[in-house]
């Protein structure tokens, strides 16, 4: 059996910053290009997010099988579950890999909402997206934090409400540039999908290395 690691994206960010919605937005874009995904959602106190994604993406739109949207409880330790002891997540990923290594292109792991020091264990995720939103003002990303500084892609969400908060996107952009040196960041509105195409492009380029979807490769092989 040719067992190849399926690329994995970790998505972290503060509670309610839009992790689930971002997934709901970019999975259809990847799906349009033929990429097949699986989603593991680490919820802190419920399985609401997993249930919502299963309904929206799997049951209603058929973009992935219902069984590939999996909710995981983290015992109240969302950061531990993706960083110092990702055992449960890794087990679930390996179970998925064993079943789907010929057709699945990407595994997405949503961390439970947490504080700004979250990072993903490299043993769990190959690519780390950190998502913040403008609702706590424009002081982030200047305040830094491991997630904001070290992630592979910083997503700044909810730009539609910036005027109501008095958050200056220009300030956030300049700070993001300084704090992240040359690493990329994207402004998005997950309600409308604005900017999400760019997130999908980063994933295709930096995670999937522009390889065609596995189902396409296998068909022509």
């Amino acid at each position, binding site marked *: *059996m040719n*067992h*190849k*690691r399926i690329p994995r994206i970790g998505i972290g960010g503060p509670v309610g910053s839009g992790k689930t919605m971002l997934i709901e937005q970019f999975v259809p874009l990847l799906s349009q290009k033929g990429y097949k995904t699986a989603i593991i959602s680490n919820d*802190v*106190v*419920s*399985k*609401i997010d997993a249930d919502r994604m299963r309904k929206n993406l799997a049951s209603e739109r058929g973009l992935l099988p219902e069984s590939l949207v999996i909710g*995981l*409880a*983290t*015992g*109240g*330790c969302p950061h*531990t*579950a993706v960083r*110092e*002891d*990702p*055992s*449960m997540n*890794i*087990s*679930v990923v*390996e179970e998925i890999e*064993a079943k789907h290594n010929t057709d699945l292109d990407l595994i997405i792991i949503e961390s439970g909402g947490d504080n700004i020091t979250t990072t993903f264990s490299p043993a769990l995720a190959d690519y780390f997206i950190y998502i913040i939103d403008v609702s706590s003002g424009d002081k982030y990303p200047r305040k830094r934090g491991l997630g904001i500084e070290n992630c592979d892609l910083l997503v700044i969400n909810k730009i539609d409400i910036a005027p109501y908060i008095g958050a200056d996107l220009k300030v956030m952009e300049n700070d993001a540039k300084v704090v992240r040196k040359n690493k990329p960041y994207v402004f998005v509105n997950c309600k409308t999908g604005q900017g999400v195409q760019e997130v999908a492009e980063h994933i295709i380029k930096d995670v999937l290395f522009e390889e065609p979807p596995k189902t396409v490769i296998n068909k022509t092989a």
Partner: protein
Amino acid sequence: MNIKNLDLTIDEISMLQLGDSFFPTGMYTTSSGLEALFYNKRIKSKEQISEFISVCLKYQLGPADCTALSNSHKAAQSSDLKTIIEIDDLLFSMKLVKEIREASTRSGTQLLNCVLSFINETPTSENIYNKDNNSSKSVISSYFDAIKSKDAHGVYPIALGLASNVLNITRERACMLLLYGFTVSIVGAALRLGMFPHFEGQQIIHSLKPVILEVIKKNIDRAHSKMWQFSPGIDILQISHERMDSKMFIT
């Protein structure tokens, strides 16, 4: 102090390593139904939590998990993979709640994965998935292969038995690790549910030390054919917890 007279061995440090709640097995994600008891308001006092853990130890973990661990540790010493797989299957079938079964096999698999990564036989995608070249493998690697090929489940107590064996941790001590680790994980869950302050947690652990010893004594020499577990009240509770909509813990 004269280093030469130091009465300590590497094996004892290994025991601390496996017994540490920092060791990555994901055990902090389970409460064994305590969360359901908490939300149903059926457990309030420190004494009741202590009683809950004690019942789990005496009627679930002792005669099932502890006996399974002990026998798999023994079987590992004679590289008897067949018996190990038999015990693994037996114990798996005794875990009546799906999410507890799953959590146990996930913890077990990751425990093996981790231990194999530092005892020289580092698993790589080649040697895990390539079944040739099996001859010179240690029993712990063969068991890991059996899990990957779905010929074994990889429940936690068996994994701990094999890991302890390979790290020269005695059977008695391995049983202690199992029961102590369980106790700590439930107390940890209770603390995160805000059931009592941190000192009380340590008081509970302290008060359960004699129970842990007694349970080991009763079950360590039991044959695996005589394994049992009987705590229907807790089973029902764990099943109802599995179905709770809003929860912090897997079970």
